[in-house]
């Protein structure tokens, strides 16, 4: 099939989403049907592209020689695009229910749908320039989503978000320029695409700027503060964008840059590698502890996201195929788990109007499905066997131990310790929901509190089923990801 079809899933949601604004739907139902149709159609095209399109690159527009917008599908794009193409339509359902009472829904859904296309652009991009272009666009298109509520808190969050992501991207810009200069226009080739004749020290410097620059979107240690603050956004945004799409595109970009542009050979064993690894290791511990301290439900989960993103960065920075397998697996699996957690948290907040962890006391008996799934997701996130989180944690820790250096083993220990802290911050919520120490009757007499609507429960249950399926029978997915890490796909 003509590779130009790759453009369809990117442009369709961007144009389709944009059209919501001039159309300015009055009827919520019509808008919902329209938006869902666009998103589902896009997902269909994504799968068509993933399964049918050849592996050739397609250049859409060429500025000058070696400086063009090019798309291509390979293993990593399949993983990332496949993952979000399943999640987006489902979370849209959730969003319809969640945003029912909100103002300015046209704007919200317009940007929400547009983000889908931009994220797919990141997934399909074939070189650093294209990746960077869509990366910046992603920052811009999501700002209105963060500031959606328009109150003081979300304005502040939006400013902060913009400052961090745009500032971060400017750091990464240097890496983009350097790789375009000294590489094959920054084309992604497994194993690295740099030519000879560059200044190694300068290249290393470019790498570390790129790591922290792209890492900003995945909230790596000193540049993380935007993520918890951005919890002021509506839950569909926090769940899909700040737990999966946006933050994972940071991981995606770092992985691309590390394995497909710079190449692991150059970096392995250098102090740069260990700086990145240790930053990630510190970051994951730090975030876990901060999550325990945090009382705001969504901010707590945001810190947990930060911690898990740093797992991935750590694992990717091991620079071994096993490490890449672990990192990418966790990207997928953490996406599923965190989606459940956020959607459950959102359901709680939507139904009760409360935001804080201490307000959860005893709500479990009122919302049994939501909080049972929340508990399962927590267990999965900790890494209890038979849930998917165990699989990715297994691969990451094995890779860290197998890496051989003392740093690797130290990182493995950090992973385990933070998994324990994860148990503290996740399970205390379930424990409060089902077995409160006090305030058992907070929601007892109140007949109004019950499960959220069907549209909200469907995605939650779906992700739970996916989580357990991967946990019990992970063979195919692990094979797929390790083929990517082996450079075969």
């Amino acid at each position: 099939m003509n590779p130009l079809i790759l453009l369809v899933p990117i442009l369709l949601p961007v144009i389709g989403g944009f059209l919501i604004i001039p159309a300015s739907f009055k009827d919520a139902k019509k808008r919902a049907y329209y938006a869902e149709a666009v998103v589902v159609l896009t997902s269909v095209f994504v799968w068509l592209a993933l399964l049918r399109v050849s592996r050739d690159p397609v250049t859409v527009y060429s500025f000058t020689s070696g400086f063009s917008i090019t798309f291509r599908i390979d293993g990593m794009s399949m993983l990332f695009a496949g993952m979000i193409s399943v999640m987006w339509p489902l979370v849209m359902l959730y969003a319809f229910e969640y945003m029912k009472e909100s103002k300015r829904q046209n704007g919200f859904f317009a940007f929400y749908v547009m983000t889908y296309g931009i994220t797919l652009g990141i997934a399909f991009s074939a070189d650093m320039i294209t990746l960077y272009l869509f990366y910046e666009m992603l920052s811009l298109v999501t700002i209105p989503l963060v500031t959606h509520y328009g109150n003081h808190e979300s304005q502040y969050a939006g400013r902060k978000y913009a400052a961090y992501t745009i500032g971060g991207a400017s750091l990464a810009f240097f890496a983009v320029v350097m790789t375009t200069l000294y590489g094959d226009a920054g084309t992604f080739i497994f194993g690295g695409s740099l030519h000879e004749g560059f200044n190694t020290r300068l290249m290393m410097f470019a790498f570390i700027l790129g790591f922290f620059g792209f890492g900003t979107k995945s909230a790596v240690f000193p540049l993380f503060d935007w993520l918890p603050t951005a919890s002021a956004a509506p839950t569909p945004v926090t769940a899909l964008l700040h737990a999966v799409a946006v933050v994972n595109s940071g991981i995606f970009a770092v992985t691309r840059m590390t394995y497909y542009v710079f190449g692991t050979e150059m970096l392995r064993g250098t102090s740069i590698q260990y700086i990145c690894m240790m930053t990630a290791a510190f970051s994951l511990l730090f975030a876990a502890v901060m999550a325990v301290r945090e009382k705001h439900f969504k901010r707590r989960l945001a810190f947990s996201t930060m911690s898990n993103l740093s797992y991935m960065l750590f694992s990717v920075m091991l620079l071994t195929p096993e490490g890449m397998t672990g990192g990418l697996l966790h990207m997928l699996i953490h996406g599923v788990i965190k989606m459940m957690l956020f959607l459950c948290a959102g359901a709680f907040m939507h139904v009760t109007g409360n935001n804080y962890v201490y307000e959860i006391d005893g709500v479990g008996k009122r919302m049994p499905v939501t909080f049972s799934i929340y508990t399962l997701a927590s267990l999965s996130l900790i890494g209890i066997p038979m849930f998917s989180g165990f699989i990715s944690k297994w691969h990451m820790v094995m890779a860290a131990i197998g890496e051989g250096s003392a740093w690797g083993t130290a990182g493995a220990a950090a992973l385990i310790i933070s998994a324990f802290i994860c148990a503290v911050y996740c399970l205390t919520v379930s424990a409060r929901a089902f077995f409160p120490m006090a305030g058992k009757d907070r929601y007892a007499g109140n007949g109004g509190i019950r499960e959220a609507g069907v549209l909200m429960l469907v995605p939650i249950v779906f992700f739970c089923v996916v989580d357990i399926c991967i946990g019990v029978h992970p063979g195919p997915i692990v094979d797929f990801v390790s083929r990517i890490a082996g450079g075969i796909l």
Partner: protein
Amino acid sequence: MLIPFVVFFPFFGAVLTALIGRKNERAGDCLAAAVCAAEFLPAILLLFRGGEFRIGGIMAYGISFTTDGFRCVYAVIAAFMWLFTTLFGLEYFKEEREHLIRWWFFVLLTLGATEGVMLSADLMTTFLFFEILSFTSFTWVIHEETREAISAGYTYLFIAVIGGLVLFMGMLLLKAALGTLSFDLMDTAVRERGITKEVFAGGICVLFGFGAKAGMFPLHIWLPKAHPVAPSPGSALLSGILTKVGIYGILMTTMHVFSKNTGYGMLVLLLGEITMFLGALLALFSVNLKRTLACSSMSQIGFILTGTGMYVLLTAAGSEEGAGTALSGLMLHMVNHSLIKLTLFMAAGAVVMRIHSLTLDEIRGYGRNKPFLKAAFALGALGISGVPLFNGYISKTLLHEGIVEGIHECTAYASLLRVSEWVFLISGGFTFAYMLKLFICLFVEKNSDAVRQKEFDRERRSMNVLSCAVVFGSSLLMIVLGQPAVMKKLAAFMTGSEEISEFSAFAIGNLKGGLISLGIGAAVYLFAVRNIFIRKGSYVNLWPEKLDLEFLVMRPLLVKILPGIFGTVLSVFGENKLLIPLARAAVFLGTFAGRVLADSTDAVILFFRKTIFKERKAAAPKTDLPGFWWTIRESTAETIGLLAQNFSFALLMTCIGILLILGGLVFMMLFHS
């Protein structure tokens, strides 16, 4: 097909019980008992028809089961204990039906998971079922949902999770170092590669992971809290079998990986001794019936760990016979302790069921005219104290014999072992003392409240016929297992060797150890307990409130110290402390440079007027403009204010990013050339 049935049938039964129990509670109760009964028969058949079983693909690694003497016996004991506690539970839960279906559901799930652990052939399978039972048994602890129960439940969960994750780490380290997780293949792998640093680290992690469930020091903190608050059938299972799950894991790694590693042996021995002594001491101080029994469990786990340590030391010293003695001793003590605690906790349950209290003062004199209860409790107490002719005596003597062998064989640290021998004997003495304390309190003394005593005496029967049969029936095993011939057969079956066939239980030397212990116990009871722990006719708790490992060390570390440290880091690196000052500095520098550049023109003019044109009285042109520093300060503040309030703050960050890049570039260039 026997093995998958034994492991997975209870899971199926649990779901069925929950479904039917929702409709009809009474039917749910009966179904739970029926499931346990149906589990018991195939478990017995396992003794005669072993085998292996494997399912590939689950969790990518697959799970596998196998049988041998030890595993089969424990599979049977687990099924037996579940059957008895469930039958007892039929009466125990008669009046407190709240959450009962949840209770049966999780009890049956835990049965399946326990069988899974006990029959597991590789560490992965052990780990999987171990985690399942950790979480399912959490609901036992919080079952009553009182404040104490929930608090204890949190502690239990905390330790269970910490144990599970440390175990996970250890498992991965072993997998990386040995290349396999199958117990049988580990033997060969260790023989080929030796005990490397990684293997040792993995072993320590596994020891702590399983030790958390076994109640090993310093992870014992959940045990004295969780056992008393759980319903009695649950306490019996927690103490009788779930602690043994931990021991199972420790024993398997010990036998297959570390059987000849002296360092590991010493570690297990020391931890065992501490657990043994501390448990006995805590039990002696306790004034709560079930808490005493729980601390006693901890102490007995210490005995078993001591045996494990001796087994390793003796194997390392090359003494086959001594190692065989220690191994038989510890396995028999596991069996004994499981059965004894079954009886004792059910007896305690019979007390709680009627008078809803566990404090010694309040239950004092309850059992004075209840012969079956009295007999059952007495048999349990005799068994656990190691009185000759009862079961605990034989296993304890074997364990003691192991230490004595060690003193002869391992001459390098004979003095250390001599100390352990005395710790062993004193702990044994304490056991006798606290059991005596419980027995005399419950069955001999009269309650200080005469009205209450009259009520107790009026009640002739504390249990219905079924419960009575169950409790008394289980206690008769103490006598059966007290016969040396039976024990020798059992040991031979479990260890698969005939090492102790020559062992004579009632030889003078062996009797001496037991009698010294009993003597110490009697003395402690008479002098310490009667005079110190009983004041003005009531039992007092002399243990200092503050001396609690959990609240003294563990909680503050997790809740205060770590977040405190990281919180400080956050406040340094958070935007208000780092980014805003950075932005301010950048703006300040910019304004400063701009002002200096602007003023420099004035300065040049002034310079020329003074030098070339010789205007002596020349001065700087007077303007209305404010002073130099003031301008800089004000415009900086203004710019920052503007920046922080709008979108251009982002652009400023961009500029800082680019500046950093430029600076870095320059630095790199200079550095390189």
